């Protein structure tokens, strides 16, 4: 047991706070609109940064950690010293993230997720790479890890497509453009918009003019998302050894995740539109404070039992999930059906007032709304919950183009049952299952008697 310091990147957090403080003098100078004031503000900013850097350095010097046989002890703080012992039985997952800059500097960001998301979900630390590996081995040791899943060939392509996340990719793209324009001092946004306009003019040669701009955006987002997904999932491997599920992968940012198999609260088999086309389903897991953003596994539809190689208790629902004749269709379709009606009305209006250019865009939006309506109708038929033969719970629900089939392993759950007066009269209720990950899973139109009598696993 030897006292060691964190990586100097530990100071980055405090320097970031300093950058936020730097905004105050600058805002004052901008409001006064005075050049002299601006120069003074810059001097004040430099002073703030130097002070924050010194403070961060002192804090780094007085902070450190010790690694014992079964725990990691953290010592932090200058005036108020905190000594935190992280032991194996508190931890659900450990994530070692090494972006390019960290790799150059020999550091690793270690995110430790706790078993329960309350009161503290995770803790982020900065270690030297050697120390990070030792800490991860202490907290969640992996022994004889046989590879369970390694996407190659066509599976790799499927995995990339199913791992793609449009929302994070768009946020990443916008953030990157802003950062680049700040660093280079040029209007990169204008160049990007110019490029998009040129591309849409080119697409107008092949598709109707009204839809070309939308098609350009869809094309760009798809390409960007797939490229990011390709980089994120490069060299992706999943294995299990000694009760730990280990995933590794990434090209620019290398990520290694260790998840304790006994701490997995539930796994979510998601049937997205892409998954329906490709006939493969991605599987995500949640363990305490940890929620995976990349699928743990992709398997052919109907062969979900293969997941038992990673999670032995996993099963698809073994009993009937719901009674369709006791359900109410309007509960499911009121929103997507209203949206469809609105879009149809808008198309009619556009046709009447000679705005033909709007019709292709509105038709495309109507297509999306109809897809969502279809998903909700499917949810009407399939949404529900059941207790499986192996004492796990299964819950199935539809949400935004996706059907989720969740297998809950954790016994530490509670139920919340909600009824409106109409639902009470019809003998229906909404069931919420509260999990230790602080995630509430909802099944609409469950049968109250079944929900109130199903037994917990004690």
């Amino acid at each position, binding site marked *: 047991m030897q006292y060691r310091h964190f990586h100097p990147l530990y100071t980055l957090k405090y320097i970031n706070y300093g950058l936020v403080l730097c905004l105050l003098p600058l805002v004052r100078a901008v409001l006064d609109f005075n050049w002299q004031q601006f120069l003074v503000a810059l001097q004040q900013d430099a002073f703030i940064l130097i002070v924050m850097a010194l403070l961060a350095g002192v804090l780094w010097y007085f902070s450190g950690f010790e690694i014992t046989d079964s725990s990691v002890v953290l010592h932090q703080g200058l005036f108020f010293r905190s000594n935190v012992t992280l032991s194996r039985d508190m931890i659900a997952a450990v994530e070692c993230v090494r972006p390019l800059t960290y790799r150059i500097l020999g550091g690793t960001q270690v995110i430790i997720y706790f*078993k*329960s*998301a*309350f009161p503290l979900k995770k803790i982020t630390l900065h270690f030297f790479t050697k120390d990070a590996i030792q800490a991860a081995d202490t907290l969640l040791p992996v022994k004889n890890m046989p590879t369970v899943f390694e996407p190659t060939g066509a599976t790799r392509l499927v995995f990339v497509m199913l791992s793609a996340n449009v929302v994070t990719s768009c946020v990443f793209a916008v953030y990157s453009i802003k950062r680049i324009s700040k660093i280079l001092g040029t209007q990169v946004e204008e160049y990007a918009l110019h490029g998009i306009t040129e591309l849409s003019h080119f697409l107008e040669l092949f598709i109707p003019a009204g839809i070309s701009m939308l098609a350009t955006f869809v094309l760009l987002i798809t390409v960007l998302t797939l490229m990011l997904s390709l980089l994120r999932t490069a060299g992706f491997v999943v294995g299990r050894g000694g009760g730990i599920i280990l995933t590794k992968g990434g090209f620019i940012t290398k990520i290694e995740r260790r998840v304790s198999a006994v701490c997995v609260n539930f796994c979510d088999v998601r049937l997205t539109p892409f998954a329906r086309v490709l006939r493969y389903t991605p599987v995500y897991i949640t363990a305490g404070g940890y929620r995976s953003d990349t699928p743990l596994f992709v398997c052919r539809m109907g062969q979900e039992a293969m997941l038992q190689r990673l999670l032995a208790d996993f099963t698809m629902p073994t009993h009937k999930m719901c009674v369709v004749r006791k359900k109410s269709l309007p509960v499911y379709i009121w929103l997507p059906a209203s949206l469809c009606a609105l879009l149809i009305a808008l198309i009619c209006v556009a046709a009447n007032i000679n705005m033909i250019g709007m019709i292709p865009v509105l038709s495309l939006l109507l297509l999306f709304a109809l897809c969502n309506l279809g998903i909700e109708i499917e949810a009407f038929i399939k949404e529900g919950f059941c207790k499986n033969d192996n004492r796990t719970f299964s819950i199935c629900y539809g949400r935004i183009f996706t059907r989720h089939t969740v297998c809950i392993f954790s*016994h*530490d*759950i*509670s*139920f*919340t*049952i*909600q*009824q*409106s*007066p109409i639902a*009470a009269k019809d003998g229906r209720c909404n069931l919420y299952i*509260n*999990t*230790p*990950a*602080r*995630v*509430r899973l909802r099944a609409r139109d469950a049968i109250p008697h079944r929900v*109130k009598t199903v037994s*917990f696993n*004690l």
Partner: protein
Amino acid sequence: MLRYKLKKRGIFVPAVWVFTATLILSVIFLRPNIIAVLGIPFGSTAAALTYFSLRRYTYSLTVLQRELILQRGIMFTTMHRIPLRYITAVGTLQSPLQRLTATTSMYICTSGNILIILGLSTADSENLRMTILNGRDV
């Protein structure tokens, strides 16, 4: 099976909180208008008292051998089923006003949820706390 209900005096405490908060806000924002300054706090307190009285009749806390059931709601009902074994913390809070009325605010935590119960009598809350703690070991 043990059953607990909210006490009548327990509902006066949140009504006093509502009165104090609305009085302070109306004094700050509606000071020249005496009718508004007095009318809004009294009106909102009357509404709060009506709401809490109705809620009191529909609020019930039942402890079975292995689980705790909490039912509440006037029109839109909510029922919580919590296994006693997975309750992680039980605690009580008492304000000076609650000490005067011998009532408590109680919180029950599980790893995925927190329940806050206002208006239990002190004796009931202590009894419930002991029942939950003993029931967890069954």
